[in-house]
């Protein structure tokens, strides 16, 4: 059976036998870069059409169904539309920062792809502090939003950016603490080791109630971190028209849009890795036959299945709940999520020390 | 309270008030100078308690302007129509916005539409017409706008 790691391995083999090592390395890097950009674009397209279909079905509509079979090419058509649109820069804007901001948003999203284990033995960069890397790089995201909001020279944008700054900075705390509960269990920050530690069961099931609480908190916090409803105060279209990207148009707007969706994918991938076992198949105790059938499904499908399930959850939130107010948003973090996750981390540490987990 | 009872009380309050017959409700005509004090009494006298100003408007009679105030008491459910005759060339009248807050907005509308000047109004600016509107007041009978008004 083919797998992503085999494909990667054979490419590597062919390159190293054909070229000298330096050129092979350079070529591999180019291939990896192109693959990431390709993945980036494909993810954007897939997630946009998925969101639109989910929204439509929840809202008793049909959703896009004109372009391509069952409307699946709708987002491709939208991309073409955005590409040929004029990318305007307002007169009063700080032109350098204004044009830089969408690229920073995109670069951050691409950097975050690096340590994610897409399939068994298939990872761009398995660095030993993978989880720390993800949580630190993702905080750069706020810089691009602040940059966009400030340089637009628009009051709505500025307010949206400031809101999102306050929001992301505070929600990173509980997201970090939720991640830490799993790190405490595995004792490693390396993504491959975290996945490996779930070979006999996912942390969501192995870690008792604290893991479930941590999972819920993680989902809430990342929804807030990616600025999605019910925490989409940064763009709050009924209050701030479009928040920080009010002044953006054409492809620059599309980059923000794309990076938002890719960020959603990444946080869900991290969630799947930490709580749902990454690419690990679903195993139940000693049911050999069942476990074997599960093993037969390729690991990449497991990974993407779990990730898309979490993405669907986040979309479900978005199309059900109203938006919070800024003070309620911060109340929720500082009064509820943070104390709960701190107590939860303590509990989890006690569990880990006592070894009360499977 | 019935119209007759209201009439006696109002005659006591303001002997100069003139009554008009024929309407559904009691119509009282007062002088512009008496308006503010009289309206304050209507609002604050416990057995009258006209606390709800539900309609404030102006009628251009070509010779003069008439301010019309429709009052109601939410407690006793009686009504009163207060009318004030104004000079068409220099329509000045005291504002009632201190007594009924709703008058502030309604008077701004009358100010721009009829050109009635409300004395001591807290915020007498154009509300509906665009900033810098010059010329006549649109709701007056002699207003002509050859571009936007279509005569049938």
């Amino acid at each position, binding site marked *: 059976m083919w797998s992503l790691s085999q494909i990667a391995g054979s490419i590597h083999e062919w390159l190293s036998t054909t070229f000298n090592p330096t050129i092979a390395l350079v070529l591999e890097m180019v291939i990896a870069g192109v693959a990431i950009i390709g993945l980036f674009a494909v993810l954007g397209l897939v997630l946009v059409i998925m969101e639109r279909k989910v929204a439509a079905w929840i*809202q*008793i509509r*049909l959703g896009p169904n004109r372009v391509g079979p069952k409307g699946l090419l709708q987002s491709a058509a939208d991309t073409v539309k955005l590409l040929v649109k004029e990318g305007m820069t307002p007169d009063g804007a700080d032109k350098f920062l204004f044009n830089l901001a969408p690229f920073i948003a995109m670069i951050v999203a691409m950097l975050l792809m690096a340590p994610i284990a897409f399939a068994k033995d298939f990872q761009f960069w398995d660095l030993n502090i993978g989880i720390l890397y993800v949580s630190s790089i993702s905080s750069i995201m706020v810089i691009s939003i602040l940059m966009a909001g400030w340089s637009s020279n628009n009051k709505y944008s500025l307010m949206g950016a400031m809101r999102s700054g306050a929001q992301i900075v505070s929600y990173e705390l509980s997201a970090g603490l939720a991640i830490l509960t799993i790190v405490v269990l595995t004792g490693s920050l390396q993504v491959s080791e975290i996945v490996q530690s779930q070979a006999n069961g996912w942390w969501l099931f192995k870690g008792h109630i604290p893991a479930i609480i941590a999972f819920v908190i993680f989902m809430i916090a990342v929804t807030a971190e990616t600025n999605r409803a019910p925490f989409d105060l940064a763009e709050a279209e009924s209050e701030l028209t479009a928040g920080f990207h009010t002044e953006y148009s054409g492809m620059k707007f599309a980059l923000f849009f794309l990076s938002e969706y890719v960020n959603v994918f990444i946080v869900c991938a991290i969630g799947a890795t930490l709580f749902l076992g990454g690419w690990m198949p679903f195993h139940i105790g000693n049911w050999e036959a069942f476990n074997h059938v599960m093993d037969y499904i390729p690991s990449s499908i497991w990974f993407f299945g779990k990730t898309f399930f979490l993405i669907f959850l986040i979309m*479900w939130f978005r199309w*059900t709940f109203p938006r919070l107010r800024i003070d309620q948003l911060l109340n929720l973090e500082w009064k*509820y999520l943070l104390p709960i996750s701190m107590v939860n981390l303590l509990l989890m540490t006690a569990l880990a020390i006592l070894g009360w987990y499977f | 309270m019935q119209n007759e009872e209201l009439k006696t009380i109002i005659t006591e309050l303001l002997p100069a008030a003139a009554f008009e017959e024929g309407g559904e409700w009691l119509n009282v005509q007062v002088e512009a100078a008496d308006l503010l004090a009289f309206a304050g009494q209507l609002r604050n006298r416990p057995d009258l308690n006209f606390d709800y100003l539900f309609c404030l408007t102006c009628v251009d009679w070509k010779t003069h302007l008439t301010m019309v105030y429709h009052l109601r008491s939410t407690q006793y459910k009686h009504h009163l129509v207060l009318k004030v005759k104004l000079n068409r060339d220099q329509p000045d009248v005291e504002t009632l916005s201190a007594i009924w807050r709703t008058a502030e907005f309604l008077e701004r509308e009358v100010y721009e539409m009829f050109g009635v000047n409300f004395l001591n109004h807290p915020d007498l600016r154009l509300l509906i017409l665009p900033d810098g509107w010059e010329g006549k007041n649109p709701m007056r009978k002699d207003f002509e706008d050859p571009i936007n008004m279509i005569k*049938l």
Partner: protein
Amino acid sequence: MFLKDYIKEVYGAVKSLIVGMRRTGYYFTHHKEIITEQYPDNRATLKLADRFKGEVVMPHNENNEHRCTGCTACELACPNGTIKVVTKFDITPEGKKKKAIDKLVYHLELCTMCNLCVTACPSDAIKMAQTFEHSVYDRNKLTKILNNPGSKIMEGVE
């Protein structure tokens, strides 16, 4: 006590959110509840109410005859000046002059479909049609002449 209230509050909040998600989840999975009408595609089956007010028309019979006497009741009833009746004088076989319509000009762009002209008409000469796709590229096309060219008044309509 404080802790109990705190937990109760969190529980109530989470429950209300889950109730909402169950409702949207229901619609997500039940596609037969979808109410979208795919308008240009369903033209063949689209049926408008028979009283729907789309535009004013003047029905003609097979001999190209209408019922309009040119009394201008509709023109007077119209609040917007949508209808202009242009009259002429026909010579009847007896040699008498008789008033008849030359043109009944109808400005669709001014019409608000209030139905006042139809109710005002004493001889039921005009009625509301159920057409609604009125958009055209040239505004002049919205000014219509309701009577067909060469049409005559029906026998017996006064």
